């Protein structure tokens, strides 16, 4: 028997042995990903079918959590808020990123310094920038309201832009654009620097003005980088919690609504798990559609 086993090992070709070594090498990664990513996702899906109790006595409730979530108007409100937040913050981030990248692709004095300074919003700790923004929009002492009401006189009454549930989403979107455009700018700039100059020269010979050069040379060159950028930012902003919650807890995007449902009030962990599952399905649906249609993979 031992001889047979030894014979089997001996008969492995070098390629097979290499494959086996490959499996040994990736095994730790598979175990870690399985334990830290796959298991929580599966467990979360499992929990969504239960009425979860902190004492551990979970009761199977079938699809009751799912029905309750989908029939709750606050859930649809959260979905709607998320769509608004993600759409405008991603569009804004990409547009500002493109404009800044185009500007930074031109020669001007101290360009190296400006290029670094632009990264500040992205690298500054979120909590520090959030406090700065809260001071800026403070209804009584903030510079923003002061300028609008006292200096320009555009608005008659002081208002709490960041606190009012109706306007807070605007602040959250603008904050997200401001905080994340440097990331878009970095990726776009690196692609811009790789665009072949001869393309522009050829376009000029064909009589293209600046807009036409942008439309027919720059944009096609940027297509896939913009496509990937939009995908990444949608995934990140769809799941974004801290940037929104820290600046104002009045914007009930799905991630915040899930947190509030699961951990405050009635502390409904089963419903929280259901929300997370639905959020995951919505996002996966978008990703599959987008990858097929836009990135054409």
């Amino acid at each position, binding site marked *: 028997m031992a001889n047979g086993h030894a014979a089997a090992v001996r008969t492995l070709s070098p390629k097979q042995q290499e494959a086996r070594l490959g499996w040994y090498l990736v095994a730790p990664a598979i175990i870690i990903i399985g334990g830290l990513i796959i298991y929580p996702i599966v467990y979360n899906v499992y929990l969504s079918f239960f009425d979860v109790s902190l004492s551990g006595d979970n009761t199977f409730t079938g699809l009751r959590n799912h029905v309750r979530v989908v029939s709750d108007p606050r859930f649809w409100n959260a979905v709607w808020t998320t769509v608004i937040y993600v759409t405008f913050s991603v569009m804004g981030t990409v547009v500002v990123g493109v404009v800044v990248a185009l500007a930074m692709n031109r020669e001007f004095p101290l360009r190296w310094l400006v290029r670094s300074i632009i990264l500040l919003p992205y690298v500054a700790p979120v909590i520090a920038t959030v406090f700065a923004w809260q001071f800026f929009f403070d209804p009584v002492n903030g510079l923003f309201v002061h300028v609008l009401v006292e200096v320009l006189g555009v608005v008659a*009454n002081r208002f709490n832009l960041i606190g009012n549930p109706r306007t807070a989403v605007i602040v959250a979107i603008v904050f997200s654009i401001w905080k994340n455009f440097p990331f878009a700018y970095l990726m776009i700039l690196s692609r811009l620097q790789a665009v072949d100059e001869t393309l522009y020269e050829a376009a000029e010979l064909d009589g293209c003005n600046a807009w036409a050069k942008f439309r027919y040379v720059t944009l096609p060159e940027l297509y896939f980088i913009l496509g990937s950028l939009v995908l990444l930012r949608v995934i990140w902003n769809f799941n974004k919690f801290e940037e929104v919650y820290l600046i104002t807890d009045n914007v009930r995007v799905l991630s915040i609504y899930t947190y509030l449902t699961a951990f405050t009030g009635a502390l409904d962990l089963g419903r929280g798990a259901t929300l997370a599952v639905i959020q995951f399905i919505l996002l996966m649906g978008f990703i599959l559609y987008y990858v097929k249609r836009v990135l054409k993979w």
Partner: protein
Amino acid sequence: MRKILMGSVMVLMIASMAFASGSQEPAPAETQGPVEIEFWTTQTQSDRLATIQVLVDTFEALNPDVTINVIPVDENDVSTQVAAAAAAGTLPAMGEFGAETAVALGSEGLLDIDANTSFIQGLGADRFYQGALRMVGDGSGSYYAVPFHGWIQGIWYRADWFEEAGLQPPRTWDQILEAAQYFYDPDNNQYGILVGTTAEAYTEQVFTQFARSNGAALFDGDGNLVFNSPEMREAIEYYAELAQYNPPGPQTWRARDYYLQGKMAMFFYSTYIMDDLAIEDVAAGSLTSDNFSDLQGAAFDPQLVENTRLSPTITHTQDAGYGVIVSLAAFQQDDPAKTAAASRFMRYLFTPNAYITYLHMAPGGMNPVLPEIASNPRFLNDPSGVYSNYGAEKLEEITSGLANIESFGIVDGHRIEAASVIFERQIIPQMLYAITQEGADIDQAMAEAEAQMQDVLDSM
């Protein structure tokens, strides 16, 4: 620091010896032979522990037969630590913790109710603020613990503005509303009052005072949920009306800065604000004109402490204050000598010099539960110089709030555990936020909150 500590030890030793020899305190005869006890305290900061150690050293010098080991325990860990010690048979002889914790431990039979009750009776129950005593009572005339110190919440208001306007101090619902309306002048960036409207603890603390002043409660003495009552509805309606005179948008305790800047007439806050009002360095930590030099009126106002008064009690159908009491308690012990030693140490901590030294650890945060201490000239003279800015009369007025403190969590000597869970889960603040900021219908919001509270009860 060491010099100050040594100095304090000397002063305390001399003062205590003078007190011991001058008073009629009988030499305690209950203990024979040396006894060693543990004192668990929730004062975990090192400077406070140093002060407590000074008091312990002084006590031990006066009572050579007693040794006290001071053990700091985090407030949030008290229940678990006590449970573990009870299981191991190593309960400390004495502890210092919040009244709610004391009632919970007491009702589980871990505290020596007889020792604590007879201590209060020995000191004189009528010498305490009655509200403070109620917070540790068992509902049948005995006490789970001995109230020691506490903070009070109330309406801090611009007494000079009120006087100029000819308004009464804000005590009744009508007086508060009238003043809030009168001083609300958003065109000039001035606001009437600050009540909490965000979904956080501060909002419930402020609202509790209004609800209790109308006799509204979350639970009755038997633990039945009685939240959805006409009294509660009336309090919510009134609260929502009052919130209109807040600065714009949802507000929380941070908006107290507007008061320090002279832009607000009244605000709810605890006595922890006392040093901000009185000491420039402390106030500088708040938002001032340094940050926004082009905005008007914000530098430290040295007159503010003089022009500010506290209205600690709100009155509608009944008086209601709000505050948190910290208590001392003797634990159940097998050895009566340890209980006796704990009682002696407690007695020592209530002697004026030791008591005032203890309270001075946190001016504003630790207020005396004995009215006579609030008017003691030594109490006025705290090392950081906060109290001298207020004077005896105001300090008595401030601490008098302890006479009427009310809570949702303690009803007729029973601690309602569910009230703490409801507090933690922000059910009431979320309801008030929805009503005041999102324009939710009061009845509907109350019904939702009630359903959430019922969920809490069902899950316990």
